[in-house]
């Protein structure tokens, strides 16, 4: 059934929007970063879904086996790269949050803004 086959894509959309909502609506900087991670995970799901071939297995060539159907390895590689980028971004974001805590004493976005306004 069409809807069932597209299940993964629905999940992708829902997770994307949950992450995006968290980034926009939450005031705590750590929650924003968590939302960003969720947002990026949704994209990984999209790529993995698209490369799964019906009946395909892990794309590793085995000696002597010639008629194996493989899942497409390219998006899997793209996702590995994107995961690494996501990790670096999260790490950098957290480092900045630590510095914000040291400089402002708070990690709530509203309080940081009001401290800046009063300065």
């Amino acid at each position, binding site marked *: 059934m069409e809807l069932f086959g597209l299940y993964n894509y629905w999940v992708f959309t829902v997770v994307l929007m949950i992450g995006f909502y968290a980034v926009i609506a939450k005031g705590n900087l750590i929650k924003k970063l968590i939302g*960003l991670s969720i947002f990026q995970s949704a994209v990984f799901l999209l790529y993995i879904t698209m490369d799964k071939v019906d009946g395909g297995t892990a794309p590793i060539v085995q000696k002597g086996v010639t008629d194996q159907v493989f899942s497409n390895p390219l998006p899997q590689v793209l996702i590995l790269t994107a995961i690494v980028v996501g990790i670096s971004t999260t790490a950098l*974001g957290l480092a900045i949050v630590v510095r*914000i805590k040291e400089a402002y004493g708070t990690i709530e976005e509203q309080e940081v803004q009001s401290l800046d306004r009063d300065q």
Partner: protein
Amino acid sequence: MLIAPLVVLMRVPGLPWAVATATSLMTFAIAISLTSTILDSYSVTYEMGSWPAPYGIELHVTSFSALLLLIVSGASTLALIAGKQSLDTDIEHDRQPLFYAAWLMVLTGLSGIVVTGDAFNIFVFMEIASLASYVVISAGSDRRVLPAVFKYLIMGTIGATFYLIGVGLVYMMTGTLNLADMEARIHEVGELRPILVAAGFITIGLALKAAVFPLHAWLPPTYTYAPHIVTVFLAACSTKVALFVLLRFDFLVFQQNLSGHEVQFTVFLMPLAVLAIMVASVVAVYKQNLKELLAYSSVAQVGYILLGASLVSVPGLTAGILHMFNHALAKGTLFLAVACLGMRFTQLGLVNLSGVAKQMPWSMAAFVLAGLSLIGVPGTAGFISKWMLISASLQEGALGVALVAIILVSSLLAVVYIWRVIELAYFGEPPESTKSVREAPIWMLVGTWVAALMNIYFGIIPALPVALAGEASSSLLQHLP
């Protein structure tokens, strides 16, 4: 890129700067030699690891890439050479190796984006450049840089992720990531809706990175609170490179294959461009901090570039691409002059700068020259691109006349906000506390003046950038009916 980790290990003071500058100079030399090759033979390709395209990643340098490579490496070199003293004051000595390593990574990322021919490789280099630029920006001393860079991180990552979704959708439909191959394969695609969605995602993602109105909110605080020389480099390059990707992707891959896409492109982007120009210029008039004023002016200039591109004609696109070059020159010089001022003043609010021209005449004179280029006075580089933009708009009939009016009004607004600074600097009275301020270090002045004089040079002899921009736009548009 290979030199960056080595720089981290260098603890001898002065050495990281020297190595970074030498690397930047080498990159600039390579850019110049690439440009002369491009002027002869139009494009250069190279297969990474000798894997043939489209299986392997291909580097594909065109005239558009050459122009941007000149901007990126030239801005980096000039900023590093002129800015040594400014960076020495802004950044503690034991952090300097890390800072220069990150700077080199920004240079790597930005250069990589313009030379690669593979869509995913663009994403990788884009994130290298972005992450490294978050690092160099956060070296600023004012604590307000931290929420600014956090906002930039969030918005930039969302932008890059949207771009990634778009590339994924296109890959789903065409099966390739190589831009040239995509261009060919898109003709065979049956279902066009994912391509349309992909175009939307990619455009929004890159618009976030390029600070297109209304997604520009990260730009003013970032430029204001970053170290002055960092602002020189980033203001000259980062938005232009994002626009490069946007134009390249859109014109090469999408334009010809989605019917009516040209109209969609124009209808969507032209109002945003016009809004950027008008709103950002008006906001700049009211800003009290010198760097913030120039940052909003940058948002307006991105609008000009996009306006030229949204005309979807060879003259329009040429004007837009040329403006990338000229604005990089003008803004780079302006921020270099600000860095000179920043050597003597810690607060760059306009009230603190009253009467500064008497104490720092050379810095302010360079500022005036670059300001004239920003406004578009004949004889400066800015005039050439504004003139081309106006003549391209006039070819569009009634809409064109309205656009010309907008361009002229916004140029007048630029006069207003540049004049505010000039008036305060030249005709104001210096407050008591700053009466003993001297001129900026001679080395910084030399660098600033080299940049300022280049504005004049390219205003009188614009042959090189115009040739590159013209070739770029005709190759981008060659498939359009």
